[in-house]
């Protein structure tokens, strides 16, 4: 098991750049999730790590060795594909054995031992003699993972492996993957477009947008301290509300002015134009008019079981608040709002970057 280092890794197709100088270090035994909307370059980055795509510029190191231009099989990695890519003409057993026999000089008994062991872990021992078209989606998924496991590679690469499964199965496989990672101490790089998957699986998460790395960090860190508005809105459901405000000097300190409220800022802010980012759970809704508080009109409410969401128009901005079901205001009602400013985040309105709090 080993560390993976990307240094300024870039990809261009026919001169058109698709991945821009990504710097990323994946530590040993880490579960690193690459997440982003479709077309953000996450799969391309993964395929570059796998050696399936050429690296246009930059360096890639696995376990200290420069493998920027090494052939895929020389990188000591294994990959699980979105469609599983099981060889349809081979049994599950042969699918798992094929790469081992091609890339290693292991004897038949050792190969068999590894396959049996992996099958045991994945509970697919009884499926080994079947061909892929005789397996269900979840079973194929396990075989595909098994094929990667038996290789005992330094790094596991997963390319949206759960996206072909139904919701229930997906949750179960998620738990299973987490278990495997923990029990076997794997180094994993995992691509998904699903932020919940990213948050639940990753020891760290790397967020990509338009070919550029936006932020890398532990899931909660990303949630609490997004580096920019993209990360802020991408992570978390419902998404963070952004309120357009102006910072004004005010003798001793600064004030944050919104069209429907104004408040004192503890710190100075260099920029006059900012976004105030507030998560739904940081907004408190008061049914009655409270003097000095911002006032908004409830547009829409949604009950989602244990709690409720309300969309509220605050001047020109629409914000989403979360609250206990009992406290739900009626649509069209005027409400007073207060924000839990201990976790308030300010973003530069022009660059979207987070401002030091």
């Amino acid at each position: 098991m080993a560390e993976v280092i990307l240094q300024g890794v870039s990809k261009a197709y026919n001169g058109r750049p698709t991945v821009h100088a990504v710097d990323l270090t994946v530590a040993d035994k880490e579960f690193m999730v690459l997440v982003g909307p479709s077309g953000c370059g996450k799969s391309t980055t993964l395929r570059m790590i796998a050696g399936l795509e050429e690296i246009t510029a930059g360096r890639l190191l696995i376990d200290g060795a420069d493998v920027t231009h090494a052939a895929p099989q020389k990188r000591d990695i294994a990959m699980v594909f979105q469609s599983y890519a099981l060889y349809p003409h081979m049994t599950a057993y042969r699918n798992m054995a094929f790469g081992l026999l091609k890339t290693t000089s292991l004897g038949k008994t050792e190969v068999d031992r590894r396959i049996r062991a992996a099958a045991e872990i994945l509970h697919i021992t009884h499926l080994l003699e079947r061909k892929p078209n005789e397996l269900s989606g979840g079973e194929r998924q396990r075989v595909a993972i098994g094929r990667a496991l038996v290789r005992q590679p330094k790094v596991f690469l997963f390319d949206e492996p759960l996206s072909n499964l139904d919701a229930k199965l997906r949750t179960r496989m998620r738990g299973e993957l987490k278990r495997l990672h923990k029990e076997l101490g794997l180094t994993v790089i995992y691509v998904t477009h699903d932020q919940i998957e990213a948050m639940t699986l990753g020891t760290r998460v790397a967020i990509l947008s338009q070919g550029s790395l936006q932020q890398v960090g532990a899931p909660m860190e990303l949630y609490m301290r997004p580096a920019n508005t993209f990360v802020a809105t991408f992570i978390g459901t419902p998404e963070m509300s952004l309120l357009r405000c102006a910072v004004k000097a005010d003798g001793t300190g600064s004030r944050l002015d919104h069209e429907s409220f104004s408040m004192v800022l503890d710190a100075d802010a260099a920029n006059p134009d900012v976004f105030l980012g507030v998560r739904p759970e940081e907004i408190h809704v008061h049914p009655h008019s409270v003097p000095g508080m911002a006032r908004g009109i409830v547009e829409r409410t949604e009950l989602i079981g244990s709690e409720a969401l309300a969309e509220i128009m605050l001047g020109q901005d629409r914000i989403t608040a979360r609250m206990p079901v009992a406290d739900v205001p009626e649509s069209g009602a005027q409400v007073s709002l207060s924000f839990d400013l201990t976790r308030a985040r300010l973003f530069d309105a022009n660059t979207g970057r987070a401002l030091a709090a």
Partner: protein
Amino acid sequence: MVISTALSARIREAGLAYLLLLPSLAFLAAFTYWPILRSIWFSFHDVVLGDSKIIWLGLENYQRLLEDRLFWKAFGNTAFYTVITIPLAITCALLLAVALDSKLRGMAIYRSAFFYPVMIPSVAAGMVWVFLYSASYGPINKGLSLIGIPDTAWLYDSKWALPAIMVMSVWKYSGYFMLILLAALKLVPSDLYEAARLDGISAWNRLIHITLPLISPTLYFVIIIGLLHSYQIFDYVYVMTHGGPADATNVLTFYIYQNGFQYQDVGYASTLANVLLLFVGGLIAVIATVFGRRVHYLGR
């Protein structure tokens, strides 16, 4: 340094590709391109088979072609044959393939029944159909008389001789296209049909909206091959009618053969062959642009 490594990888890739093409290209060069080049050169000359004397003619052969009544007749016959027979045979083949792409009892027999005509040597097949088409004692006329259609000597009649050969071609080649389409149908993933069935889509719509798009690469292939296969009509014309009666069945490939081998007029035959090549090439280019773009590849 890094970039040059990437570049060299690409050069290696291209080098391997050329290496893979080399065996084919070597043989194509010797037995296809060289004859085509010679044919282009011949077409500007008076060349007689068996005679080493070659006389420069310039464009005379091409001029002759424009004024050649039989060339235009053969051209028209070829076009007529192609335009009718190919769609007919392919439709027939498609329906057969779809019908036979299931676990029907006696499948082996059906498949063999529709494919065997491809295997009958054209000499023999042509002769058999000469008999089938005979007036009065021919089985086809006997059959047709049952439904009140009067006796016709199909191959003796300049109106019917070409359509008769076309019907025979459908018999001979449907099985051939069927086989290729059947191979393609085997590759269509089953879950697509399941999904469509769950959506309550009718069998006909499944054929049109799922099967056809999914086998479109093969269908595209079959259409082009069908077009080129219309060359095969030569065999039947040669055996059954020799281009007659009244040139009604003279088609371009037969006319090229006649000029090149029977008349030993190699220069003119080459001219005809070049014109046919241009024509068919143009037609394929049209098909490729119109149809090729709409082909769906499963493998992206």
